[in-house]
């Protein structure tokens, strides 16, 4: 719809957002200097190490929205991240069609609404943290090429939105995620209460460095079954999400639990959760978050392997337990405290301190300061 009834040209609107983030990690070397790993604490603490860095967490995005008329629109977003050497990439590019006032269909590259903040995860201006906790907000992929359907039913004082997607992810560096299908239902009551539930399934295939020889070992020993179950090869993963958000007067409360079912693969079921509380005082918000990062490994996969018969087999079983199963299981806490200052209409200054632990009692802290904006 255009303001001047006779306008025929496509109207293009530009907008964007960005974050300049400075951060430094401190603590045990096992975490701070860690370059590899498969948990949320890999590569230091969320990618930060012991030196002050402004590149790792900073990024900018430009979005172009075109109104093509007849309820058709096109959206393009290009993002440039410091940690990717500022190389621009299309985060999404899709056509949208408004079937009715309440129902929009998207076709093209779009974000998957796994979690409460997934849709606008990069728009730091829209929430209180500098970036949402990586223990939950680090899905294996964030966008798909496919179809999306967003339908909102508005009641007198509440609304119910269903966002469903189906599509594929573009394979990269040995990671393949296919046949992505799922959706999320969000119920909002009188603007202050939000309840959300989501379920997304996809088929995964990838290899983690160092695991290949272990699986080969099991096959050579005559236990292909063990290798097939533990390996990630066309295995169905399911990401669930249960979240609640309360935004009442000056108080904010969020609780989210987002388990990932990975079948029998050695990755182990992820069961991260968190609660976050915030209080607004004038244009400052103070917040504190507590959560747990839990991984439950499928140790039972080795139950049928006889022990004490063959020392080589025992060695393989032990290596598998230590390196892939109980050795990587985890149930560790994380804490975040921070402040957000809305000093300007379109920008906010944020400070944040986070503390994490790994499953071997190592701990690390992260200090961040960020200037975030939307325009």
């Amino acid at each position, binding site marked *: 719809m255009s303001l001047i009834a006779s306008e025929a040209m496509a109207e293009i609107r530009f907008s964007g957002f960005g974050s300049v983030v400075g951060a430094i990690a401190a603590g045990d070397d096992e975490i701070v200097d860690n370059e590899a790993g498969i948990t949320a604490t890999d590569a230091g603490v969320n990618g930060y190490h012991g030196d002050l860095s402004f590149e790792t967490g900073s990024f900018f995005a430009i979005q172009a929205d075109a109104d093509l008329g007849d309820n058709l629109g096109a959206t393009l977003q290009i993002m440039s991240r410091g940690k990717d050497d500022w190389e621009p990439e299309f985060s999404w590019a899709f056509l949208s069609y408004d079937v009715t*006032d309440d129902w929009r269909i998207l076709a093209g590259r779009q974000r998957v609404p796994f979690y409460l903040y997934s*849709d606008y995860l990069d*728009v730091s201006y829209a929430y209180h943290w500098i970036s949402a906790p990586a223990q939950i907000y680090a899905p294996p992929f964030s966008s798909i090429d496919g179809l999306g359907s967003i339908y909102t039913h508005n009641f007198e004082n509440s609304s119910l939105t269903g966002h469903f997607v189906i599509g594929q992810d573009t394979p990269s560096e040995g990671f393949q995620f296919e046949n992505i299908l799922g959706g999320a239902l969000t119920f909002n009551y009188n603007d202050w209460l939000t309840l959300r539930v989501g379920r997304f399934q996809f088929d995964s295939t990838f290899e983690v460095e160092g695991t290949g020889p272990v699986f080969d070992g099991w096959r050579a020993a005559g236990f292909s079954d063990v290798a097939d179950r533990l390996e990630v090869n066309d295995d169905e993963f399911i990401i669930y999400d249960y979240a609640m958000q309360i935004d009442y007067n000056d108080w904010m409360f969020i609780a989210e639990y987002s388990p990932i079912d990975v079948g029998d693969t050695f990755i182990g079921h992820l069961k991260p959760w968190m609660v976050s509380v915030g209080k607004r005082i004038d244009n400052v918000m103070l917040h504190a978050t507590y959560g747990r990062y839990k991984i439950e490994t499928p140790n039972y996969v080795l139950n049928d392997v006889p022990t004490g018969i063959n020392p080589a087999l025992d060695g393989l079983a032990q290596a598998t337990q230590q390196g892939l199963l109980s050795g990587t299981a985890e149930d560790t806490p994380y804490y975040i405290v921070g402040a957000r200052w809305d000093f300007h209409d379109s920008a906010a200054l944020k400070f944040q301190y986070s503390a994490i632990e790994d499953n071997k009692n190592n701990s690390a802290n992260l200090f961040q300061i960020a200037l975030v904006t939307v325009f």
Partner: protein
Amino acid sequence: MKKIINVLTIVLVSVLNQAVLAEVAIIVHPDNAASISKTDVSKIFLGKAKKFPGGETAIPVTQNSGVKDEFNDKVLNKSSSQVKAFWSKLVFTGKGSPPKELSSDAEVISMVSKNPNLIGFIDASAVDDSVKVILKK
């Protein structure tokens, strides 16, 4: 000491300025006969309703001047930063777009008086008879 006094003066002056609050008038085209409540206005300006109670298409327009903060606070019950955050969640996910932003009371009056689907807000003192006031806060 001098710096503190200067800062305090600035803070005091801005607080006093805010104490003299402007009255906000929500306006529509004179031919718009719909009965519109504050809740309806809030829903239209937050993209939750796309039609007036009578069924006509509703197109909200905002303006980027002083009365905007008053409008956001009194009618939407949100600070301007909260409104901005609210729209960022929709804009940057392709789910919606914020109302067109004009630059003055005069521009809002000019556009609203010409299009029966528009709804806007202005400083109550700027109201003239080319538009119809449906709410004052």
